[in-house]
């Protein structure tokens, strides 16, 4: 399992691994929004938490189809399925590797990019906390979508359509935590909901992902 994780991380940082893909997309979105809506600081700081969350979510979505597609194309997914690792373990490790290479950099970059959107000072902590609590859910749900569409030619479109509705609850509660935090309100309720969604999907979805992956490999 550790071997699979280190292999995936190593592949991600080598040429063509797509490590910077999500991060670059996130940067582009947050840089372009102030140009699009104008330089009015009050408006920007009001929409900043939501823009950061939407940017992070779309950046996450962008790299989902790589989770299994590369391993499927070169045949290593078949070989992993016959290896002594449980399929549930394989999909969990894949989700963890996706989070470490996409989700975690987004979490760390968000406060920096918040400056561009004149995020209020109280908001930085809560944007960081909400993304840290929410992005694992995005990776795990995305892994499920990737497992569903593995082997489909041009499966990326179907993957996005399948995964987007599943991302909505995470987005609602995540952006709500960040917004309330930025406005200095109590964040406990949406934060608990967000953490609950993350914990729930981490516990349950690997089993579903493993089941659909087994069916797709037939």
């Amino acid at each position: 399992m550790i071997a699979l994780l280190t292999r995936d991380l190593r592949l991600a940082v080598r040429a063509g691994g797509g490590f910077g893909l999500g991060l670059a997309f996130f940067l582009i979105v947050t840089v372009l929004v102030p140009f699009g809506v104008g330089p009015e600081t009050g408006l920007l700081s009001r929409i900043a938490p939501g823009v950061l969350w939407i940017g992070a979510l779309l950046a996450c979505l962008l790299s989902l189809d790589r989770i299994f597609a590369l391993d499927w194309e070169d045949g290593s997914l078949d070989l992993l399925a016959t290896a002594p690792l449980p399929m549930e373990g394989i999909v969990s490790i894949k989700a963890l590797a996706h989070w470490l290479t996409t989700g975690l950099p987004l979490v760390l970059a968000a406060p920096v990019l918040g400056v561009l959107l004149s995020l209020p000072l109280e908001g930085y902590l809560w944007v960081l906390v909400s993304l840290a609590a929410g992005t694992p859910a995005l990776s795990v749900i995305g892994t499920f979508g990737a497992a569903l569409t593995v082997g489909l030619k041009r499966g990326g479109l179907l993957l996005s359509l399948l995964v987007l509705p599943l991302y909505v609850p995470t987005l609602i509660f995540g952006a709500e935590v960040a917004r309330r935090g930025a406005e200095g309100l109590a964040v406990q309720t949406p934060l608990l909901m967000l953490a609950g969604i993350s914990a729930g999907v981490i516990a349950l979805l690997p089993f579903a992902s493993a089941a659909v992956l087994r069916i797709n490999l037939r």
Partner: protein
Amino acid sequence: MMLSVTDLAVSRGGVPVLEGVSFALAPGRALVLRGPNGSGKTTLLRTIAGLQPPYAGTVEGAGERIAYAAHSDGLKAMLSVTENLRFWAQVFGTTDISAALRDFDLERLEDLLAGNLSAGQKRRLGLARMMVTGRPVWVLDEPTVSLDTASVALFAQAVRRHLQGGGSALMATHIDLGIPEAEVFDVTPFKASPRAALQDEAFL
């Protein structure tokens, strides 16, 4: 422990392609599957490797004893030869990759990226993977594709050493490997009668 296949039927896309296949493979023996293209050899091997459920019949002595090699080698282009091999060794819980590198003449290539290897060298690396799994039953699908004569001889030697060590091998191939222990099993007589899929098995 024997690998035994009893009255096995296998399906591709829900349509049975082979039925009534029975054979047994004892330790130290090799079995070569023969049959024209599309006759179901790959489907049979995938079923025995556990990647798809049998349409009917049983496979015994497979599961965790099988090391499977498909048409594609499962190599990562951006990892070196040793990194690729060491990864599979770790997955299968073994540590020694030097024997595999030596037997498939990969020692001079060990620091090259797998993406820079020729087709035949990639194939040798893919086959060397079987040695680091430490599993007794090798299931090989067209192992000699893109190998030259010298590499086929290396492969045949590796298989014979594996058989002498008490392992067994099940191979689908069209050429003569020069392995005297190997018996030939022709799948042509077991071709399933054409009929539509009896059930929608997508979610079974």
